[in-house]
């Protein structure tokens, strides 16, 4: 897909900073971003760290998993277990919340987050 926005890749942390099949939070340019290391699927995801339900900086501490037959990757907020798709940021618990998602790139032992300019 062609897109007109350019993505700036920013160094976020080291691979081992993020626990296997779990998340961690990084601070990038004043933004709190949750990074998820989905070891079981060999995939990485990133979203905003703020859970939109009660405005808590908590998603990086949530449990990750999959939803439905399509195995959509998801995270559950530790506060009230609202779940969100890690692919689209859409709330999967039947409410109209939406998360910002970010692309993730791994180079060696470094994790980069793509911020669109």
């Amino acid at each position, binding site marked *: 897909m062609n897109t007109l926005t350019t993505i700036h890749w920013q160094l976020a942390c080291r691979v081992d900073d993020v626990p296997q*099949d*779990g998340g961690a*939070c990084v*601070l990038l340019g004043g933004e709190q971003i949750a990074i998820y290391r989905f070891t079981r699927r060999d995939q990485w995801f990133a979203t905003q760290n703020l859970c939109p339900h009660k405005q808590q900086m908590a998603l990086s*501490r949530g449990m990750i*998993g999959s939803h439905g037959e399509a*195995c959509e990757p998801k995270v*559950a907020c530790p506060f009230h277990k609202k*779940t969100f798709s890690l692919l689209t940021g859409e709330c999967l618990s039947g409410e*109209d919340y939406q998360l910002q998602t970010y692309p993730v790139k791994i180079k060696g032992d470094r994790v980069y987050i793509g911020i669109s300019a």
Partner: protein
Amino acid sequence: MKYTAKPVVVVVGNGMVGHRFCTRLKAAGGFRIILFGEEPRPAYDRVHLSEYFNGKSAADLSLPMTGWFEDEEIALHLGDPIREIDRERQLVHSSKGLSIRYDYLILATGSSAFVPDLPGVEKEGVFVYRTIEDLEKIKAYAPRAMSGAVMGGGLLGLEAAKALLDLGIPQTHVIEFASRLMPRQIDSAGSHTLESSLKQLGLQLHLNKSTLAIEGRDRIESLQFADDSRLAVDMLVISAGIRPRDELARLAGLTVGTRGGILVNERLQTSDRHIYAIGECALVHGNIYGLVAPGYEMADVVVNNLTGGNKTFPGFDMSTKLKLIGQDVASFGEPFAAEPDCRTIVFEDRHKGVYKRINISPDGKYLLGGVLVGDASAYNILLQTVNNRLVLPPNPEDLILGSRGGAVEGAGVMSLPDEALICSCESVTKAAICSAVMEKEATTIDAMKKCTRAGTGCGGCIPLVKDLISSTLSANGQYVRNVVCEHFNHSRQELFDLVKLHNVRTYDEALTQWGKGDGCEVCKPVLASILASCWNETIVRQATIQDSNDRYLANIQKGGSYSVVPRIPGGEITPEKLIVLGKVAKKYNLYTKITGGQRIDLFGAHVGDLPAIWEELIEAGFESGHAYGKALRTVKSCVGSTWCRFGLHDSVSFAIGIEERYRGIRAPHKLKGGVSGCIRECAEAQSKDFGIIATEKGWNLYVCGNGGSKPQHAQLLAVDIDKETCIKYLDRFLMFYIRTADPLSRTATWLNKMDGGMSYLKNVVINDSLGMAAQWEQEMQALVDSYTCEWKEVVNNPELRKRFVHFVNAPRKKDPGLEFAELRGQVKAQEW
């Protein structure tokens, strides 16, 4: 104004009904909608207004406006009431000076509180109960009031009384002119039952009281009644009924009723065909409908008419079910029908505070209506029976007594006709729900809400929706298995046995062997708990399958800070240790509170400070209290025979011994215990999962008690046993529970679901009827022997310590969003 080809619909009033109208008309499309509201805030849920006093904020109550402002089809003017309608030129003039031409005008101005013309109503301390602003005023005034009264014992009046109780006003009175409470919904006998329940909750009721005057210098001091009596009160909330807001319509020359209300026909059209009135301001078929559901129906009728339909409003069923101050109250169909037009069946249980009345047709075939007080669990099915004219069973008393033959509850839902309205807020029929189950696989409440919107309004239909989902599934041959979640087609007990049998040690192994997909927030903690119960390897080794609290070994609190609870076995603590707790709390700026389990909870710790805090605590001899885990919390004790003149045995030493024996053991849910030194039961042991009470000859052991939302007394398992036997029985009991209970079910719930109940449990634990006793005792001993303190492991392991940071790329930086407020000289979490 911008030229637009779309017809312009101006809506006056941004309450629940006006909001519903706009949402529905927006969805239909083809109109430009301009909404004027008097209140400064967006529309909010008035039905749940009283929840504002138990912690909900104005934002929680606000109604969603998803998609409203796309395509610029809706313009919203808040805090700008319409002051005049120019019908000739089809113009409205707003208070802020806007003039808008309309093609259709919708009046949804609602109602205001009716304030009787009493001397003194203008005094300070007199309020009405209608809007969030009213509630804010009441909340601000309440702290200086020692006593308060509500004028009006109707539905809203009792809601207001609940609000005063929630605000902590020590003396709350309800004053009602009629001879019974809720005169529009329930009969005298129902009112009597409700009165005794409310009195027990601390409300003081005054019926047959006609208020003459509100007395006091500048502020209210007392009420004077027609029977010459007086009542001294510091504040008064008037809730004596509603009056339709029809002043704008009057001014415009529209026809209004003699007792108020904008007169409309069955299409909700006023005397001007361009103007409609909906909700509580409309007078339709001679009635003002003061509930939200008929208002929603009116909104839908007008949307239908504006979009070319010809739907009419035939009147509305005023059946209602609500929870007032924790008491179920419901009335449906014709609650007051009397002989000879009907026959009445009444059930009354004064002990439990339950009253039920049903009115059936003289031929015994149909249900006409009824009243339920104290237990309205049958409401949905009774209402459906009336509305769908279902033929009654031969013993209609079963409807209120419950089938005494042991038939499955909810079995009756499938007999409802397809068109039966299940969710009246969103107009969802039984057929729509069943087809969502079958065709769209909406088999959970969440999925059903998303699919049909059923249950998203007042939520009252949710039990019925649940019944329909499971009945539809089983009617189609789908065995409803008690499985953990979508990833494991097994119950917790099956998984427990599999883990044990196959010696599985990690979540990933279990998922690969018996599950599918990548797991979720339900099955991960369930397996984490099973693995811990089986092998007792410290949970920090598989941190990311633990629920958040177990992952950080602390309890997450509002704002994302954590609380720290060191173990204080039996509630016994030395002065030296108390000083350490105080020093640590001061050093890390923690809020301290004594818990219900005789421990000290330290709140407001930053995630990054947790290892350092624990290092200091462990240094002083403390260990983890497992307050974050589904594990043994505390064994509460009274001081017992070491000091107390009544004490029979040393309850503190026994409590400490038991707490130290079972500390750290993971279970399906948390576990609490208690030991009392005599029958005075100061340790409240009978409200715990296990409770031990000293007797002359030894100890009595009680099990499966529960505090919480559904309190239940523990039941006697064994009498006059010695300490060793007591521990043996406890070992067996706990292992049986750990092995067989569903996830997150406390021992009380576990027992309630057990076939054979207490006598079965006694047989298993005392008579070893399953032949498991020796194995369980051995397994428990293995758990006891392998205990280690999780926090000690973290504190001594630099790799584990590294996990306790907020930002992994800035480990020393704390979450800048985490802020605290001040409360009585300590910190507290910011409101969310």
